[in-house]
């Protein structure tokens, strides 16, 4: 599952055999009274050290649910019902308590969508950052507070020494997201999972936070998994892009390839609905229709009902994820036919 298009300067040849993170035929289901929701269906991909992978899809595509399995955060009514997630070869799904205890917040860190509710309202910023350091690095209370202030400085919070004594409600949303990023970076993780880190923020703050993540990624050679519904966000940050639709991975390609020539009609639709600076577009086009009901998904391609190129085969049989000669993977009976119209 090597990525042909990963930035060569960052990829370490020695690590090529075992990817840093490997998601293998992952399945997550939600048990509800209406029926079983198939939130993630047979998703497989891997991340190499040093790369930035973007996972794109609309609400309900299963991307956030998938991200949470990486840290064993799946909660009822959700359950992992099949497949595996391997971190440097170790499972994070099966008998993983000990591994997770070591990995969480230490080797893999996560930042979440909503900075307003992600911090505990009754503890100071300093306490909440230093508890990670004390847990994983065995810092004393004093050491941890000093380091917490350094981390706040690193993520661009001015007057960090005073900020550690403040409570979350005394900070703005953008500030809180910076605090959460500082917290995630506390143990210098090998992988940073960012689940829609800017969705809840004002547009100007969004840009600042994305710049910050980009800077940190370069300075600290972080590996990043960025979950977003916004292809614009992916363009600036990611080497590779995974497109998810209705719980399935439909296209996995290098960012450049995807932008230049989307192979899956859904990727193309997403691209047409995203404003771009590099291509002159007469207008933004939205994708007609809605995603299928994930309690009883259609037997064929989940996108078929909304797809201009759909043929009978698309409605009847689910296309597999096929690897093409240029290295990209697409699950579509009519892959690469978008451009030809």
């Amino acid at each position, binding site marked *: 599952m090597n990525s042909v298009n990963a930035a060569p300067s960052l990829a370490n040849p020695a690590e090529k055999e075992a990817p840093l993170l490997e998601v293998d035929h992952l399945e997550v289901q939600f048990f509800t009274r209406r029926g079983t929701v198939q939130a993630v269906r047979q998703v497989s991909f891997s991340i190499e050290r040093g790369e930035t992978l973007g996972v794109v899809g609309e609400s309900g595509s299963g991307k956030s649910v998938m991200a949470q399995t990486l*840290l064993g*955060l799946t*909660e009822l009514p959700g359950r992992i019902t099949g497949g595996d997630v391997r971190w440097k070869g170790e499972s994070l799904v099966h008998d993983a308590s000990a591994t*997770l*205890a*070591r*990995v*969480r*917040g*230490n080797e893999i*860190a*996560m930042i*979440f969508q*909503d900075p307003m*509710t*992600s*911090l*505990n*309202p*009754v*503890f100071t910023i300093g306490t909440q950052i230093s*508890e*990670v350091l004390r*847990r*994983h690095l065995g810092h004393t209370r004093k050491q941890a507070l000093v380091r917490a202030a350094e981390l706040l400085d690193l993520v661009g919070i001015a007057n960090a020494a005073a900020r550690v004594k403040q*409570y979350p*409600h005394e900070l703005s949303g953008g500030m809180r997201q910076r605090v*959460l990023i500082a*917290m995630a970076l506390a143990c210098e993780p090998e992988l940073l999972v960012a689940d829609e880190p800017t969705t809840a923020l004002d547009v100007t703050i969004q840009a600042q936070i994305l710049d910050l993540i980009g800077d940190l990624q370069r300075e600290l050679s972080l590996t990043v998994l960025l979950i977003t519904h916004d292809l614009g966000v992916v363009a600036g940050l990611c080497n590779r892009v995974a497109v998810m639709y209705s719980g399935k991975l439909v296209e996995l390609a290098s960012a450049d390839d995807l932008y230049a020539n989307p192979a899956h009609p859904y990727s193309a639709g997403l691209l047409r609905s995203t404003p771009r600076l590099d291509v002159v577009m007469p207008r933004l086009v939205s994708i007609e229709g809605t995603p299928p009901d994930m309690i009883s998904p259609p037997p064929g391609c989940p996108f078929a009902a909304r797809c201009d190129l759909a043929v009978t085969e698309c409605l009847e049989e689910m296309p597999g994820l096929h690897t093409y000669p240029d290295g990209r993977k697409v699950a579509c009976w009519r892959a690469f036919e978008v451009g030809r119209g």
Partner: protein
Amino acid sequence: MGRYIARRLVQGLVVILGVSIFVFVITRVVGDPVKFMLPLSASAEERDARREVLGLNDSIPIQFGRFAGDLAHLDLGESTYVRGEPALDVVFDYLPRTIQLVALGMLLAVVGSIPLGVLASRKPGGLVDRVLTTLSLIGLSMPQFFLGYILLIAFTVKLQWFESGPGPWRTHLVLPALCMALPAIGRLAIVVRSAMIDELNTQYVKVARAKGLSQRRILGVHALRNAGIPYVTLLGWEMIRALAGYSVVVESVFNWPGLGFMAKTAIQHQDFYLIQAIVLVVAVIVVLLNISIDIAYKALDPRVKLS
């Protein structure tokens, strides 16, 4: 903070004034304070003479003016049941016993309710949760006096571990305090449980798990501290009710000579000066407890501004 407390004290005074007017008016208008002061054989003239001495023939506003004046000197009249004693002295004679009872009862309630509630919240709908919730419901569904009799029958009559009634307080306080605590444990454990379930579903707990914190720290520090905010409010109410209500019942069952027992006796003997004194002292304690609850609340939740 100082200004806040001052304002709350003023509000408390309004409540106490309201309570005293209420008690004053209903005792004077509806009841007859002289009825029990004199022996049944006393003639109508003798009763009238006593009324005149006590100033009960004056109009209600004039009587209230005099009452308020006396109140300013902490003179609440003399008890008629405990003859010749100033009513306030009687109250302070009996109050410590009630405070012992409520204090031990509430201590047991806290020690019991938090672990039970946390345990139940760990797997909502699971076996442990259902057993504990049902037990809590049984505890809070039993009338307190019935629970008291069950405890008496079991531990005093059958097992003979304790004696009933007043005596060396260490041995005799246990059963009444337990009777005070058990329903409170039921009510408070349910509060802890649902508050913990709410907190465990929050985003910050998910973040704490993603940070790799131990289960013990997430439950015992992050979630419990937040769950403590509603808990403290309800514990305060529980204390207020124990003092101003449950103590009457529990002390009656166990013949525990506290203020609640005295309140029941004073009401049965229509000892109006004593009733007034008891109600006023209880109202003052309730006001002070309410202010303490707010301060505790502020200490637990940095978002709360006292204003």
